[in-house]
């Protein structure tokens, strides 16, 4: 009677295989356990209730995004747009409530609707437009990010207080983001296991054609799947923004990759058909544990990246080892040829449309500036920071005053992008180019190319190494660092332990401010720096890194943050301690920073005058364009702003 040769040999293997089986059955879980054990052994601060809750909070946004992406990946799709959609939803909420005065409840609904709408557009493009999910959601990634910049005009918007409570704690210890994460996880598990939509996801992901021939309305289900992903992204965006009390248009950049990584680490296959909510949660926790633990251990920024990459690879390797031992690999039959041809067509069409749009915009641009006025280009390292937005504002005001045609570009902290922008500037017949280098060294080659073209170059805020600049307009970062050290040490009475939040590793501003600060501290042997960690100029990271550092060093009395954004993040982490038992000092003197100085949570900010930087840069650029002489370096003074003199700094 027997046809099959399936014989269970579980009995033979015996009990020793029991534990091995459980761990092999869930590779991600064993990876998480190993990681937690390792971190606990290495750092005494890791395995505390508070710190574990911190890990939960830091995992929350990624996890909620990843839950949404789980639906998409189970159905054999991909969603790259979740980070952008999260930022867009949060921006819509903040804009509606703060700028437009719409009731907060309505604003929240509006934000959620925005997320769902983005998902529906994705789903529509994929189901009915037959775009590959990768392309459709990549497009949405860009559109969503762009719209949030348009709505917010590039600057963070304050988040309504009532919603910001989502970032607080319940009863003083239970963080709401963790609750949101758990709740969303349960919803995800429920949808996947119990609902028609969930079962349809597995069927579609496992074999779309078989699902269709079994009567599933695949196209309609896909619409719902991507809409769900958009909904979860909106939720994640709201949680993220409420933690910072501010909706940042550039928030959650690159988080889509973290989310996808979490899903795959959790055991889902990018080929579709498998995946679980619990796995995704474990995947997000692995990423958060890693970052938290590496902060606690004060691992250098460079090595953190290496370690994170290695652990991601290992976690997935562990999981595929489980798969291999589970079932033999069978190669699927060749897919239909029609699809590929259609894809090629789609790509072709996309390329043509892109070229057409680019061509059209450059034509429009060229038409508007055909006058005889002097033209100047300004390449900023980033606009993801109020400081640089202020530089732009000062530059634009001066340009208007002088009748100069000013073009501003944003390199998004990407040196190669800045190189491209400088290259474009040289080929568009400018009288002068102002560059705010992403990195003093990395911008050198592109700047030398500008030198060759004969167009004079003005550097602002940061110098350019190995290239000729007509003038450098900058604040004295080293002097600022020294002043910060002096101000902080004197406030602490010459005694205390402090931590330093560093800017993006490798940037000149971070190096100079850090060096100046260290130099200034030499005069105060009673001050001890117990930790130095990078937080990449970013407020969210400032918050996370500070939270982690507080775990390791609960007794600190001072914080030096190399910019105001990180200082504001640190203040969030310190809570009521900020300005009382812990003194925080920032750098830049941005409007938000000065506001914090005014209300006392930030002790001082070493104020640069970004508007002045922009103004003087344009002024000098015009002079060199017209062949007039300029000084080799213009140092715009920096000033320590405390509560006493903050009124004088209106920005």
């Amino acid at each position: 009677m027997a046809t099959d040769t399936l014989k269970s040999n579980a009995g033979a293997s015996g009990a020793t295989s029991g534990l091995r089986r459980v761990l092999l059955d869930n590779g991600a879980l064993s990876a998480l356990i190993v990681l937690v054990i390792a971190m606990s052994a290495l750092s005494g601060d890791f395995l505390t209730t508070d710190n574990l809750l911190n890990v939960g909070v830091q995992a929350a946004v990624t996890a909620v995004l990843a839950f949404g992406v789980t639906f998409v990946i189970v159905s054999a799709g991909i969603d790259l747009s979740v980070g952008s959609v999260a930022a867009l939803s949060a921006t819509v909420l903040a804009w509606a409530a703060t700028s437009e005065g719409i009731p907060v409840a309505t604003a929240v609904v509006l934000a959620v609707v925005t997320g769902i709408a983005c998902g529906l557009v994705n789903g529509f493009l994929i189901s009915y437009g037959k775009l590959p999910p990768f392309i459709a959601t990549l497009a949405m990634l860009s559109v969503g990010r762009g719209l949030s910049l348009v709505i917010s005009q590039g600057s963070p918007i304050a988040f309504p207080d009532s919603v910001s409570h989502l970032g607080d704690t319940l009863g003083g210890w239970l963080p709401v983001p963790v609750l949101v994460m758990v709740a969303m996880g349960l919803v995800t598990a429920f949808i996947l296991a119990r609902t028609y939509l969930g079962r349809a996801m597995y069927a579609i992901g496992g074999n779309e054609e078989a699902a269709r021939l079994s009567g599933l309305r695949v196209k309609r289900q896909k619409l719902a799947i991507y809409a769900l992903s958009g909904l979860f992204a909106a939720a994640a965006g709201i949680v993220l923004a409420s933690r910072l009390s501010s909706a940042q248009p550039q928030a959650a950049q690159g988080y889509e990759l973290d989310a996808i990584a979490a899903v795959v680490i959790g055991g889902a296959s990018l080929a579709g058909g498998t995946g679980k909510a619990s796995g995704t949660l474990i995947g997000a926790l692995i990423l958060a544990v890693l970052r938290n633990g590496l902060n606690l251990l004060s691992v250098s920024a460079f090595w953190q990246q290496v370690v994170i990459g290695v652990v991601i690879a290992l976690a997935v390797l562990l999981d595929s080892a489980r798969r291999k031992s589970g079932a033999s690999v069978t190669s699927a039959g060749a897919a239909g040829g029609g699809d590929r041809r259609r894809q090629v067509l789609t790509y072709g069409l996309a390329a043509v449309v892109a070229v057409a749009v680019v061509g059209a915009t450059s034509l429009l641009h060229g038409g508007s500036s055909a006058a005889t006025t002097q033209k100047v280009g300004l390449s900023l390292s980033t606009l993801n920071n109020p400081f640089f937005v202020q530089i732009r504002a000062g530059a634009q005001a001066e340009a208007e005053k002088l009748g100069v045609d000013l073009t501003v570009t944003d390199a998004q902290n990407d040196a190669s992008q800045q190189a491209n922008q400088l290259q474009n500037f040289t080929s568009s017949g400018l009288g002068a180019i102002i560059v705010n280098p992403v990195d003093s060294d990395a911008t050198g080659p592109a700047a030398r190319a500008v030198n060759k073209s004969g167009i004079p170059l003005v550097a602002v805020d940061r110098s350019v190494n190995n290239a000729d600049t007509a003038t450098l307009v900058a604040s004295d970062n080293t002097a600022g660092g020294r002043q910060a050290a002096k101000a902080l040490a004197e406030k602490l009475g010459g005694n205390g332990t402090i931590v330093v939040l560093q800017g993006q590793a490798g940037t000149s501003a971070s190096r100079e401010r850090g060096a100046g600060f260290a130099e200034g501290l030499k005069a105060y042997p009673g001050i001890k720096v117990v930790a130095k960690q990078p937080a990449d100029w970013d407020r969210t990271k400032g918050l996370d890194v500070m939270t982690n550092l507080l775990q390791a060093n609960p007794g600190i009395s001072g914080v030096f943050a190399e910019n105001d954004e990180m200082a504001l993040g640190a203040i969030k982490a310190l809570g009521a301690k900020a300005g009382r038992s812990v003194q925080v000092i920032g750098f830049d003197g941005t409007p938000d920073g000065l506001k914090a100085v005014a209300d006392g949570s930030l002790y001082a900010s070493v104020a640069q005058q970004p508007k002045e930087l922009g103004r003087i840069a344009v002024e000098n650029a015009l002079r060199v364009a017209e062949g007039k002489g300029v000084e080799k370096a213009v140092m715009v003074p920096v000033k320590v702003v405390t509560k006493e003199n903050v009124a004088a700094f209106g920005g």
Partner: protein
Amino acid sequence: MSNQDELLRIEGIRKSFPGVVALDGVDFELRRGEVHVLLGENGAGKSTLIKMLSGAYRPDAGRVLVDGEETRIHGAQDSERLGIATIYQEFNLVPDLTVAENIFLGRQPRRYGMIDRKRMEAEAAGLLERVGVNVSPRARVRELGIARLQMVEIAKALSLNARVLIMDEPTAVLTSEEVEKLFVIVRKLREDGVGIVFITHHLDEIAALGDRVTVIRDGKSVGRVPANTPEDELVRLMVGRSIEQQYPREAVEAGGALLKVEGLTRDGVFHDVSFEVRAGEVVGIAGLVGAGRTEVARAVFGADPYDRGSVSVAGAGVRGNDVGAAMAAGIGLVPEDRKGQGLVLDASVKENLGLVTLRAATKGGLVDLKGQRAAAAKVAEQLGVRMTGLGQQVRTLSGGNQQKVVIGKWLLADTRVLILDEPTRGIDVGAKVEIYQLINELTAAGAAVLMISSDLPEVLGMSDRVLVMAQGRIAGELTAAEATQDSVMALAVSTNIGTNASTNNGTTAVEGSRGH
């Protein structure tokens, strides 16, 4: 014991996977210039055995001897070096490369570091001629029919100077014409001294081609017999019991017309197709591969659009190109590509059985999982699906049991008109009979069955009426009494039916009519 003619000897091979013992003591030997048939039901271990020889798996125990010397085959390179070539059911060809490039994939003749196309194409042409197939070495593999793909695979094997050629069910996808051509080639290779391991489920092919037969059952070799052993005896060895009747059709009194198709046309694919299937009736559709049978079936089911014509069930019209409408009318389709279109391979038996009824079992967005499970358990029991449990992955079931799951999901949906496209392709004798019994039960309960099959004896044995398609048209209809191999084939290869002689289906017409 070493024999001059012995190419390959396998002794006591054992291989187990987690939870499964696939092979448990298999002996096998192959001589120069012999066609040695490997016979066994699906899941008996044939595929595992040949994967040992091609280096995909390593044995846990036992010996493999090539030319009397013990060897280990650790990968494709090893088997290539030993002169062992394998042609799998799923071809290993790259669709967008040319025939010549596929034949020499990874071993393209080179000159100055560049691929020497001229030499490659000339050598490919020589090999193709030896195989006796008329294909340009420059043709893209994507454009070839399935029979020619197989010839390309054989040419590829020859280019490796293979002394041992393993063919895994090479005839499963071929029409009888093409099978004859394949046999001619295989016989020629045998004369050249190549040892051929031939796997087939068609017992008639054994006597026609084979020299010896090794029967594998439940991972053990249970017998080595000459190829002229009576079929009954072979079946008994293979199944472990005797099978009374290969085609146990029990015709019932046919009722009124249930499925009615009128003037169905998709330009360039099928034309003016009209037929009806009555309640309790099995209508077979025979024809060559590419005659448009599958296309008609998919159009009737709403999976693909059609340009003109109508489909109705029990007098009510069914909207075209709408699977949902067809299902609502009671039509079900068991597609020809079981793995590619019928099953979600990584999902469980339970999930697959519940796929069609998923929507019906949903209330307020929630699926009645308990009810789904109970229904799946009942139908699995009724069909006799052999599995470790309802949670077993469908991928790990044998072909016959997989097909039962595909049919089972339609049984659960109370299907009145079931379209079966190649229902027994690649399924062993025992499971075939079970599926035939199932068809009997369906028609006895008043359902109408439309069965497409390239297995002519099956069409003749199981149908109450036979429709023959050729070049996208119904070439004729035969009653069960009239239908014979010859009468069906005569219609299937008939050209210029009707008035529209300009309709030309290209390759299939050429492949089909050759030699008849």
